[in-house]
């Protein structure tokens, strides 16, 4: 089942919430677990037992990690990490016929985070199989994240209280996420599909660039929308799930972009790989090596075909160069944009930084989007006018602008801080709620009429 479907929004969710709210506090985890397993099995009946097995194994190892004997703890940790990673890598590199089980990259990473946190003593090993199972499988974050650490939900799991305020705020967040996914991402997907159908050697250069912009917006709103829906759903159940995105396209460096994009994944790699390896505390060579390892793992996490490796290495190279040009100064400020400073020189520098980031990230998305290397080279060739076009029709660009221009402009506006501040204020006043209501039902109409669009990150 996917969040952006009539079946989920108008059937599963209302029924589930009704049961969840009516049931007494002590029964809520059971309801959530069963509901989540049903939610998962509906879309992926084959691998439900893999999920259950994974929960059981991690539970047992987690109990083992609760022991006081150091050797035993270490053994459980190593076994746990290898089993989890091994399973993930098996599916990543499995021959063509075997598809990746839904959500496996997310729940495996979540399980590893649990084991390591227990080992380190950050949390106590969970004695209730029910609670651990609920943590790993809860449907808001099961299929596509955010990657939640156990500590973030432990308290709520032990006392699952709900409030009307949580329900209200969660529903609003769910709505805005749905709007971003259905009205922006799903719509822009059509442009990318059109471009692919035409054939990359036949697109005009302006159309190629329009495609880059459109895809960049599409992948953002697809994933951000879905994450927002997840956070909203969690909120409705009383959970405060972590945010995955913080205005990434407003970043002023590629480093900063990846501190704002898919934040829970970045957090996972930082906490469980980068810092343990030494982070940037060692010498230059060591820092670069650590970064390299993280980026290799990141690209494999997304996929094992060559283009993902290219994507990862491109970003790794850019980040290393950035580090050399301006070594990270931990000033505590969240952004490298000199926003407050109104000196003309600095404003121009900031604008140039924005352009630089958007260019690099845009090109990196092309590498991410196109799996076949020849096709990728063709697209890049057409972007920069290096490769001559075959059967190019220049009217197609004009038509695409007319068809998708408005959506793209709205999308671009929605990337800004202003848009977010507007949402935060408007969602709690009358006018804003009426607007959200209208948008909500527009999404439902669109879903009925246009059919569902599979979420881009579903097979990761």
């Amino acid at each position, binding site marked *: 089942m996917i969040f952006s479907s*009539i079946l989920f929004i*108008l059937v599963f969710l209302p029924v589930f919430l009704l049961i969840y709210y009516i049931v007494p506090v002590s029964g809520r985890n059971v309801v959530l677990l069963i509901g989540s397993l049903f939610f998962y099995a509906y879309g992926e009946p084959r691998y439900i037992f893999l999920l259950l097995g994974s929960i059981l194994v991690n539970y047992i190892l987690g109990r083992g990690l609760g022991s006081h004997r150091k050797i035993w703890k270490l053994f459980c940790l190593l076994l746990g990490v290898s089993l989890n990673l091994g399973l993930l890598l098996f599916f990543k590199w499995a021959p063509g016929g075997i598809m990746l089980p839904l959500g496996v990259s997310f729940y495996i990473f979540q399980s590893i985070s649990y084991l390591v946190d227990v080992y380190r003593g950050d949390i106590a090993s969970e004695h209730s199989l029910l609670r651990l199972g609920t943590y790993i499988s809860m449907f808001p974050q099961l299929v596509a994240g955010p990657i939640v650490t156990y500590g973030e939900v432990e308290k709520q799991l032990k006392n699952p209280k709900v409030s*009307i*305020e949580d*329900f*209200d705020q969660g*529903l*609003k967040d769910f709505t805005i996420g749905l709007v971003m996914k259905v009205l922006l991402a799903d719509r822009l997907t059509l442009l990318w*599909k059109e471009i*692919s*159908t*035409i*054939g990359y*050697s*036949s697109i005009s250069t302006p159309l190629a660039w329009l495609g880059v912009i459109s895809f960049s917006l599409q992948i953002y709103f697809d994933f951000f929308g879905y994450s927002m829906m997840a956070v909203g759903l969690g909120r409705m159940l009383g959970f405060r799930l972590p945010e995955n995105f913080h205005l990434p396209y407003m970043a002023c460096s590629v480093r900063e972009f990846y501190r704002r994009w898919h934040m829970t994944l970045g957090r996972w790699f930082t906490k469980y790989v980068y810092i343990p390896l030494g982070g940037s505390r060692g010498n230059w060579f060591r820092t670069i090596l650590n970064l390299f390892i993280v980026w290799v793992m990141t690209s494999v996490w997304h996929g094992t075909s060559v283009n993902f490796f290219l994507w990862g290495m491109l970003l790794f190279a850019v980040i290393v160069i950035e580090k050399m040009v301006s070594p990270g100064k931990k000033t505590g400020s969240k952004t490298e944009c000199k926003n407050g400073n109104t000196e003309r020189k600095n404003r121009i520098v900031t604008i140039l930084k924005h352009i630089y980031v958007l260019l690099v990230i845009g090109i990196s998305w092309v590498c991410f989007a196109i799996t076949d290397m020849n096709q990728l080279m063709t697209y890049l060739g057409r972007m920069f006018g290096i490769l001559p076009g*075959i*059967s*190019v*029709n220049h*009217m*197609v660009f004009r*038509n695409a602008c007319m068809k998708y221009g408005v959506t793209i402009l709205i999308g671009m506006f929605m990337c800004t801080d202003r848009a977010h501040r507007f949402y935060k204020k408007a*969602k*709690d006043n*009358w006018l804003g*709620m*009426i607007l*959200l*209501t*209208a948008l*909500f*039902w527009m999404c*439902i*109409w669109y879903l*009925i*009429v*246009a059919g569902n669009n599979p979420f881009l990150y579903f097979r990761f």
Partner: protein
Amino acid sequence: MKKWKSFRYIVFLCIGGMIFSTMMGYTSAIKEILFPDLLHQEKEDRFFLEKFAEELSANIQGEKNRIDGVIGIGEPDGIGEKDGAGETDPIGEDIGTEEGNDGQGNGNSDSSVILGEAGEDYFDDAVFIGDSRTVGLYEYGGLDSATFYCSSGMTLTGVFGPPNRHFKDGNWKENIADSLQENSFKKVYIMIGINDMGTGDLDYFTRHYEEMISQIRVWQPDAVIFVQSIMNVTEERSGKGDYINNEGINERNRILQEMDNGKDIFYLDINSAVCDENGNLNAEYTSDGVHLYAKYIYLWTDYLKSHAAIEK
């Protein structure tokens, strides 16, 4: 005390829901959730019938009788036996074709039109009617002097109706019915049917296709009608398990082939230009298994140019 504020949004959503289902038509909203395909079929059938019922009945009765005779409706084994005009001659006398068996019938000696190589201005008075594949032809076929009445998602039952709800491709915006009545064409090219594969059976397809041709004949009495085979899809796309598959496409094309009368309705086997030995669309020519890459549209236009209607 402040808690009531948190109820506002869900109340708005419910009110919105009631407005929404009234606008959609209460019963169709429920039907839509439970039986999405059924609603579309009913809607389009109803529109087609309402608008053209009176016009059609008088005008097409004669045409129906003629075509029924060719296909042998009501006579399952008697294909083409009522008159000689639909006799399929395995080797057509087409100038310029390499392929032998494309079902062109030239048995009728009264015919003043055969198929051969197109001249310079051949497509000036031609109109192309079709779905998204024809849109590709419009955008990349280089047939700039021709007229195109096409849109993504066009169906057999909705062909004369309003522009398709979602996409308005091609250079028309009003009803194709109006456009066909207001303009005059010497050649009418049709490629339609793949979007109807999920609705109705072969009889449904035959019936609606015949009605469409009859109606076109009424509006364009002097035109040669070219029934293009429904383009096949790739083996991979065909194997997806939904209603789009080459077996179904081939069954429909066989029906279309029977509509060729050697006089003013010709069947064009476009598939011979773009498929592989197994009758599947060549996988190298397409990205999604259904639409040709822009750079391969020329295969289609070349076929059209070498199978043009020319005076004997």
